[in-house]
C-alpha cells in the first residue's frame, strides 16, 4: 500500500506539465479570450520615420458610431521603459515620432471594420525631420539628436581596458584583426503580440492578460503610464506562444490595451498583426564589430582588443545592458588576461531593439570564434586545441570580476570532438564539405535585478490544504520553456512526492508572489532555488507533524515522500495523515521559500557598468557543424550539428534537449537566412515570407550531449540551459564553410548571394594569382 521510496523527479525526463492543454488546443493565449461585450482595439501608426507631431485631431473618429474610445499621448500619465535609468518611450508618441510604425493613437470600437474606419478618420499633422537609418548616419557630425539628453545620438558609450593589452599583443606570435557585420534579427515567435484588458469601471480596477514574459514589469509600467495605484491592477499571464526576449519589457500594445479599456470603461481585445509584431521589434541590433586577437604559437590568447557599434533603434529599451554585455562577456569562457573594449549604442530612426536570446553576447562571440578559427589555421593548430589552450579553472574570478564557480567547457569540447568524429574526419571531408566548431557560454540570470528593492530575488509560496494537494504559487512566467514544470520537479524532489500531487499556479498578480520574469535564463536558477527552499520549509512542518503523531523526535522521522515513519518496522503515516496532523490547530498550510544571490556574483566595479555580466553561474557549450556547399548556387546545407551543453545538473533532460536544439536552430536562422531590411525606415521584411526563418527542410539533425558540471549554488547543481547553445552555431557555421570552400564569411546572415560573392571574389583572386590559402586579410 504505502510506497516505501521517495519519488524521483530531478534528472528524470519529464514531459512539460502544460503539454496536454497545448496539444489539445485548450490552452488559452491572449488572443483566445472572448467576452460578449469585448471591443476591438486598433493602433494608428506613424507613416513617417522622424517628425514633430503638430496636431492630432480625433474628433471625427470619436463621432463615428460604434467607436467607444480614442486614446493618444494625452491619456498617458508618464513615459516608460525597462531600465529605470533610461525611460524615454511613450505608449503613444508624445510630440514626436521617431520610427515608421510608432503608435500615435488607438481606438476601441464595436468591430474591426469600425475600428479601421475610425483610424482612417484621425488626422495627424506631421512636420518631418531628418531621419537616420544606420548608426553611422546617426553619429555623423551635425546629425539632429533623436532625444535631447542623448548628444551625438549615443545611448551609451562603454569603455574598458583591463590587463595590459599592448604588452599582450606585443608578446603574441600572431596578431590578426578583422571587421564583422551582423544584420539585425527578430525573434519571430509564433504568437503575434496581444492583450486582453478588462476595466471594472465601478471599482476603477484593471485586469489584463498580456502576451508577456514579464508580468511584473507590465504591472509596474501600467500603473506608471495609466497613473493608477498598483494595487488596482491585476496582471494574469495567459499561455505564451514564445518570447525569446522580445517580451522581456512592457510593449506599447500592453499599455494601449489598458488605456483603451479604461477610456471605454469596458473590455478591449488588442491583437497585433504579424507586421505590427515585427514593427514592435525588440530584437538583436545590427552590429559592426572590430576584433583583434593576439595568440601564441601554442594557441594561448595573449590579448583581445575589440569594439562594437550597435544600431539600437529609436528608444533606449535595454540598450545600455546590451552594449555592456557585448563587452563584458568576452570574459567568463576562456582565460582572457587582457582585453580592451569600446562600445557604442546608437539611437536611430528604426524600431527599438531589445533583449534577444543570448542577449548582447552573440555577435561578439561570433566575431571572436570566427577570428581565432582562422588564426588556428594559420598557426597550423587544431581549433579544439586552441580552445583547450585557453580554458579556465573553476572556481575563479575573471579579470572583470565575474564569478565562475563551475566550468564544464573542457567536457563539452571532449564530447563534441568525439561525437562528431572530428579527429577522423576533419580535413578529409572531400570537396565542398566541411566541419567547423565553436564555443559559447551564457549567464544563469543577472545577479543584480534591474529593480533593486531589497526583496529576495525569487519567492515561492506553497499551499497545502485538507485534500493533501500541494499548490505551488509562483510569479515566474511559463513561456513555453518549461519553468512551471521545473519548479514542480524541484518541490516534488525535495519532498519525495509524486509530481502529480503538485498543482502549479503561475503568474497571476492577485494570487502569486512577485517574480521579475522570464529573461536572462534566471528562472531555473533563482526560482528553482526558491522552490527548494519552500519545499524544505514545508518538509520541516510535515516532519514536525509526523513526529507529533508518531510520538518520536523530529530527527527520528524518516521521510519517504508519500510515507513518513519512525523506523524500518514502522508502517508509518501516509502523506494525507501527515497533512491532517499538520493542519490540526493550524489550518491550511502556507509556506514560503526565497532565494537571493551572493554579493560575490554581482559583477565588478572596474569600469562604469561592470556589474552587467555578473551571474551566479555560467553555462558552457561547444558545437560542431557539418556543411555541404553547392559551388554553383552557393546554397549551404547543414548536414548535422553535434552540440554539448554544460547546464550543470540537467533537472529535466528532455526539456534541456529541447532547449538546446531550439537554441541551435534559432542560431541557424540568424546565421543563414534571417535579417531585417528597411526601405527608408519601412520594414521590407515584416512578414513570414520575407523574414526567412528556416523551415523544417533546412533543419538538420541536432545531437545533444548534456554535460553536468554541477554548480555549488545551483538548484541541485543546475545552471542555464536555454540560451548558451545559440551563439556557437554562428561561428561554427562560418568556420565549417571556410573548411568546405576556403572562404571566410564575416557578414551574417550568410545567404547564398553573400556566399556567392565570396566565392566569385575567391575565383577572381585565384585567376589574378593572389594566394588565398587560408591566410587572413
Amino acid at each position: 500500500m504505502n510506497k516505501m521510496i521517495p519519488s524521483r523527479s530531478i534528472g528524470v525526463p519529464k514531459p512539460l506539465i502544460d503539454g496536454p492543454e497545448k496539444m489539445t488546443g485548450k490552452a488559452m493565449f491572449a488572443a483566445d479570450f472572448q467576452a460578449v461585450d469585448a471591443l476591438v482595439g486598433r493602433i494608428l501608426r506613424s507613416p513617417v520615420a522622424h517628425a514633430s507631431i503638430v496636431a492630432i485631431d480625433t474628433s471625427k473618429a470619436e463621432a463615428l458610431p460604434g467607436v467607444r474610445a480614442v486614446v493618444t499621448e494625452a491619456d498617458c500619465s508618464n513615459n516608460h521603459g525597462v531600465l529605470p535609468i533610461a525611460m524615454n518611450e511613450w505608449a503613444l508618441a508624445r510630440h514626436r515620432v521617431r520610427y515608421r510604425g510608432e503608435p500615435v493613437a488607438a481606438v476601441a470600437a464595436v468591430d474591426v471594420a469600425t475600428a479601421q474606419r475610425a483610424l482612417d478618420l484621425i488626422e495627424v499633422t506631421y512636420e518631418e525631420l531628418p531621419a537616420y537609418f544606420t548608426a553611422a548616419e546617426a553619429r555623423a557630425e551635425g546629425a539632429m539628436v533623436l532625444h535631447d539628453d542623448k548628444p551625438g545620438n549615443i545611448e551609451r558609450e562603454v569603455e574598458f581596458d583591463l590587463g595590459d593589452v599592448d604588452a599582450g599583443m606585443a608578446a603574441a606570435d600572431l596578431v590578426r584583426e578583422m571587421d564583422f557585420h551582423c544584420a539585425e534579427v527578430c525573434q519571430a515567435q509564433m504568437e503575434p503580440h496581444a492583450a486582453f484588458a478588462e476595466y471594472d469601471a465601478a471599482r476603477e480596477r484593471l485586469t489584463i492578460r498580456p502576451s508577456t514574459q514579464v508580468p511584473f514589469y507590465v504591472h509596474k509600467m501600467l500603473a506608471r503610464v495609466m497613473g493608477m495605484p498598483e494595487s488596482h491592477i491585476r496582471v494574469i499571464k495567459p499561455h505564451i506562444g514564445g518570447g525569446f526576449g522580445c517580451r522581456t519589457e512592457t510593449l506599447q500594445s500592453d499599455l494601449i490595451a489598458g488605456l483603451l479599456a479604461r477610456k471605454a470603461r469596458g473590455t478591449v481585445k488588442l491583437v497585433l498583426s504579424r507586421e505590427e509584431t515585427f514593427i514592435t521589434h525588440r530584437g538583436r541590433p545590427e552590429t559592426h564589430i572590430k576584433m583583434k586577437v593576439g595568440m601564441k604559437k601554442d594557441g594561448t590568447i595573449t590579448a583581445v582588443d575589440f569594439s562594437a557599434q550597435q544600431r539600437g533603434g529609436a528608444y533606449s529599451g535595454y540598450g545600455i545592458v546590451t552594449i555592456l554585455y557585448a563587452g563584458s562577456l568576452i570574459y567568463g569562457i576562456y582565460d582572457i588576461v587582457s582585453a580592451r573594449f569600446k562600445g557604442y549604442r546608437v539611437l536611430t530612426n528604426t524600431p527599438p531593439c531589445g533583449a534577444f536570446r543570448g542577449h548582447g553576447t552573440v555577435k561578439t562571440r561570433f566575431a571572436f570564434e570566427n577570428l581565432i578559427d582562422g588564426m588556428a589555421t594559420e598557426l597550423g593548430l587544431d581549433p579544439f586545441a586552441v580552445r583547450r589552450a585557453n580554458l579556465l579553472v573553476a572556481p575563479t574570478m575573471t579579470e572583470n570580476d565575474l564569478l565562475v564557480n563551475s566550468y564544464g567547457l573542457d567536457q563539452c569540447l571532449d564530447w563534441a570532438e568525439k561525437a562528431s568524429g572530428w579527429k577522423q574526419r576533419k580535413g578529409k571531408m572531400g570537396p565542398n564539405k566541411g566541419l567547423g566548431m565553436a564555443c559559447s557560454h551564457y549567464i544563469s540570470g543577472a545577479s543584480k535585478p534591474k529593480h533593486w528593492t531589497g526583496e529576495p530575488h525569487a519567492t515561492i509560496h506553497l499551499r497545502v490544504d485538507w485534500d493533501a494537494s500541494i499548490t505551488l504559487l509562483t510569479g515566474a512566467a511559463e513561456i513555453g520553456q518549461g519553468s512551471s514544470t521545473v519548479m514542480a520537479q524541484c518541490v516534488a524532489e525535495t519532498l519525495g512526492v509524486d509530481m502529480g500531487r503538485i498543482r502549479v499556479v503561475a503568474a497571476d498578480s492577485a494570487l502569486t508572489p512577485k517574480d521579475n520574469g522570464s529573461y536572462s535564463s534566471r528562472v531555473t536558477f533563482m526560482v528553482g532555488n526558491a522552490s527548494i527552499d519552500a519545499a524544505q520549509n514545508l518538509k520541516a512542518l510535515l516532519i514536525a507533524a509526523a513526529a507529533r503523531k508518531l510520538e518520536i523526535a523530529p530527527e527520528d522521522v524518516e521521510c519517504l515522500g508519500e510515507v513518513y515513519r519512525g523506523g524500518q518496522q514502522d508502517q508509518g503515516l501516509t502523506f494525507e495523515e501527515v497533512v491532517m496532523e499538520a493542519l490540526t490547530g493550524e489550518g491550511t498550510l502556507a509556506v514560503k521559500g526565497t532565494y537571493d544571490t551572493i554579493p560575490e556574483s554581482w559583477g565588478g566595479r572596474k569600469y562604469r557598468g561592470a556589474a552587467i555580466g555578473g551571474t551566479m553561474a555560467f553555462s558552457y557549450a561547444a558545437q560542431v557543424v557539418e556543411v555541404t556547399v553547392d559551388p554553383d548556387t552557393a546554397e549551404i546545407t547543414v548536414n548535422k550539428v553535434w552540440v554539448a551543453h554544460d547546464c550543470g545538473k540537467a533537472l529535466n533532460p528532455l526539456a534541456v534537449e529541447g532547449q538546446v536544439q531550439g537554441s541551435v536552430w534559432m542560431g541557424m536562422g540568424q546565421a543563414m537566412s534571417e535579417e531585417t531590411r528597411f526601405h527608408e525606415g519601412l520594414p521590407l521584411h515584416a512578414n513570414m515570407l520575407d523574414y526567412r526563418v528556416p523551415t523544417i527542410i533546412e533543419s538538420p539533425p541536432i545531437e545533444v550531449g548534456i554535460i553536468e558540471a554541477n554548480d555549488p549554488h545551483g538548484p541541485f547543481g543546475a545552471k542555464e540551459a536555454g540560451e548558451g547553445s545559440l551563439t556557437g552555431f554562428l561561428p561554427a557555421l562560418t568556420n565549417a564553410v571556410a573548411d568546405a570552400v576556403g572562404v571566410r564569411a564575416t557578414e551574417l546572415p550568410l545567404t547564398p548571394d553573400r556566399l556567392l560573392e565570396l566565392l566569385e571574389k575567391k575565383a577572381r583572386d585565384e585567376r589574378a594569382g593572389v594566394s588565398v590559402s587560408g591566410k587572413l586579410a
Partner: protein
Amino acid sequence: MEHLPEMHLQHPATVEEAVKLHAAAPASRYLAGGSDLLVNIRRGIERPDSLVYLNGIAELHTITDGLEQISIGGAVTLRELAESQLLRKPFSAVAQAAGKVAGPSHREYGTLGGNLCLDTRCVFYNQSEWWRAANNYCLKYRGDICHVAPGGKKCFAAFSGDVAPALLLFDAEVELAGPDGRRRIALAALYRNDGMDHLTMTRGELLVAVHVPKIPAPVRTGYAKSRVRGSIDFPLAGVAVRLGLQDEKIADLRIGLTGVSPLPFLVRGLDKFVGRKPDDACLEELREVVRGQAKAMKTTLTPPHYRRRVAGALAQKLAESIF
C-alpha cells in the same frame, strides 16, 4: 495579418454559371485555393465585394488523358498535379514544378489555374495598406512611382508561379471562359511583359483548363527552383528545361524561366545548341545564355545579381542531370 472584410461568397455549379455570377457583381473575383488572393485581400491589394468560388464546379477538377493531349482542369490542386501519374516522363517538369510551389498545405489548396494566373510580386507591392500608403504607393497600385527603378514608367513586379515555365516547354494551350464564350490560346499568349497588367485575360474570364499536347520525341524535362528556404518561398528564379538527344547530340532544347521578369517565358536563341554535344563547354555557354536573359530586378530582398547568376547555374545543372 490584417482583417478580412465582409464579402459575398457565390457557389456556382458550372463554368457558365460562374461567368454569369461574376458579371453580375461589379467588383467580383474568382476564388479557387485562395492562398494568394485571400492574402492580397487582407493586405488591401484586392478589394472585391463578391467572390465566385470555383471549387464546386466538377469540370474544373478533371484530368483527362486524350489521344493527342492531356487536359487538366483549372481547379486541379497542385498536390494532385505533383502526384499525377499522367505527368510522368516526358512531362516530369510540370509535376516537379507543382511539387515545388510553396509548402504542402498551400499545395493542398492551391490550384493550377491560380498558379498560372498568380499576380506578379514585388517587395514594394506585397505589403500592408499602411505600408504602401506610407511609401506613396507604386506604379502597380495607386501610385505613380516605381521603387524598383525610380524614374521608370515600367513595372517590374515578377511573375512567380512555378508551373507556367514547365508548361511552356510543351506548347500548352489554355482554355478560357468568359462573357463572350470560350476560347483557346497558347499559354505564352496568356502573358504580357508588364508587371502591372501581365495577364491578357479580359474581365470576367476564368481559366477552365490547360491542354498539353503529347510529344512524340523522346525528350526529358525537369524543373529547378532557387529559394532561400526549401519550403514556402516563391522562386528567386525558376528554370524548366526540356532536352532531347539524338546520337548523343542535342536535338531538342527549350528552357522556360520564371521569377525573373513580369512574365514566364522561353529562353530565346537556343537553336545554336542543336547538333552540339552537351559537353562542359556547351553547357557553360548555355549557362551564360540563360543568365543573360534572366533580367531579374530588385523585386525581392535577394539581390538581382544572384538571381541572374543562379538561373544560369540551375539551367546548367538541370541539363547535366536530366540524362
